[in-house]
């Protein structure tokens, strides 16, 4: 099961493709030749214990870290070979939700959400409605003038989601979006990720150590007519097929498992079963 260097995207267009990626710090190799791809509009759930390189994978995909070797292709561009000045422009196509939100603590919620639009030099009359729209999407319209320290942990993550999607990026990277949250708040965050996927059709790479987050993404979809989250039908609805969810499991810096939700759910592998508990 360990990473065999295979490249499973086949004929489909890949939004993110890693090929034999290696990275290490302090002479300790964290990622040891990781290869995988994420197709357009697909959600890949990256599972793994703490310290297995999930966050590193996301940061490499966003060009925040450069791998020691291997190639990283995102939206058709070789991110692993780009210089920082090109990466700065390129990263505007990617939304990144950090584990603790990483909101700018000296700015209000509105300023945080509008940050990227302000950087792009958008007109104020364009920024305000857009900020309101994304804050409405995460149901935090009332927090516009609040500062991050006045928000709860779950609210900070929701603002972080709003900030990540403000300029409608085709790819969103989520770093442990439900880590440290209570079950109800975790459910709210997952529902938002579902809505973001099904309403805007974003490609997502989601790092987590909670298998139930992955199953929720795989087994439910957001019904835009009913405006609520509904379970996928057994024969597979069009919405569910269009937004496929796959799992990647990291172990010791390598891909230990790669497959569909049913495969991981029915697996007898003792290591995978640890995530099912």
């Amino acid at each position: 099961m360990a990473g065999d260097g295979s490249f499973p995207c086949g004929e489909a267009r890949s939004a993110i493709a890693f090929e034999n990626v290696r990275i290490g710090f302090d002479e300790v190799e964290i990622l040891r030749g990781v290869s995988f791809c994420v197709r357009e509009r697909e959600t890949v759930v990256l599972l793994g214990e703490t310290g297995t390189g999930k966050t590193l994978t996301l940061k490499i995909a966003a060009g925040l870290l450069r791998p020691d070797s291997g190639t990283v292709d995102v939206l058709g561009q070789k991110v692993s070979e780009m210089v920082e000045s090109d990466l700065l422009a390129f990263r505007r196509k990617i939304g990144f939700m950090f584990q603790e939100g990483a909101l700018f603590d000296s700015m209000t919620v509105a300023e945080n959400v509008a940050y990227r639009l302000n950087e792009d030099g958008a007109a104020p009359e364009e920024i305000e409605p857009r900020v309101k729209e994304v804050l409405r999407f995460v149901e935090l319209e009332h927090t516009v003038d609040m500062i991050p320290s006045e928000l709860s942990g779950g609210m900070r993550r929701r603002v972080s989601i709003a900030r990540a999607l403000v300029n409608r990026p085709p790819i969103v990277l989520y770093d442990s979006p439900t880590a440290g949250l209570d079950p109800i708040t975790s459910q709210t965050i997952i529902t938002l990720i579902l809505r973001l996927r099904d309403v805007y059709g974003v490609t997502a790479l989601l790092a987590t150590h909670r298998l139930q987050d992955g199953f929720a993404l795989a087994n439910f979809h957001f019904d835009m007519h009913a405006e609520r989250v509904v379970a996928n039908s057994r024969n597979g609805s069009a919405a569910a097929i269009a937004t496929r969810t796959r799992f990647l499991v990291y172990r010791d810096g390598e891909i230990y498992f790669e497959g569909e939700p049913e495969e991981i759910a029915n697996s007898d592998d003792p290591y995978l079963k640890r995530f099912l508990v």
Partner: protein
Amino acid sequence: MADTPLQVTGNRTKQEETASIVEVLERATKRAVAAVQDYSLLSFRALTNLATAPHYFQDTLDQMDDVGVGSLPIILLSGFFIGGVMVLQTGAQFVRFGQTSLTGDVVSLALVRELGPAITGLLTAGRCSSGMASELGSMLVTEQVDAMRAMGTDPSRKLVTPRLLASLLMVPLLTALMVFVGLLGGCVASVFSLQLSAVEFWRRSVDALEFADLMQGFMKSLVFGFILATVGCYKGLTVRGGTQGVGRATTQAVVISSVFIIVADLFLTKLCLYLSNKIF
């Protein structure tokens, strides 16, 4: 190993229990060289950012307010009393030769050439270099710097350049104010302690100064502003070890920038004395 603009290239050697003294020294040297390299690159980038867009004018104004207006009370208060002390000390010596009228000359030259820039640099470093290190360090450990990069902003442009520009503009102005208030304090002390007339003290203080003296003070304060901003930002952006690391970086920023200022002062004095005969 991974490299990004603000990633530290030092501190990456594996700690082995059986390392020999040679290996330990080798690692320490590598770390030091890497730190100098990172510091130089960050400073160079912060300076070259001034020549290209985008510019963060509001951030620069905010920093000018923090460095300039924020440091004003301690600079003025210190300047006044340092000027007074200088007059008391030098006056006590001149009394022995009956030359108390020379006090204004000496105090003025000392303040403009040396004490003004050096003490302004040290006080501002204590207040602002530590502030910059702790602010940027906190942003780094809470992933705000990464978030900035993820949203397409160059942190050296948004965070370092405004602080550097603000320090380059504000430290010379603070120095000028400190010298003025120092002479004011000296004037008060000379009137009450040495029974000199205020007009006489002020006239001699101003007459003693030449253009080269003013340039020496200006040049030093400019360099000290550069040192305190770049050291503060570098220590902040290379924090390791969470909140404890932020505390350590804050202390190091003050210590390193203060030592750099004192060391640079010696070389700048020599350079300025050389230039005063050639250019000014």
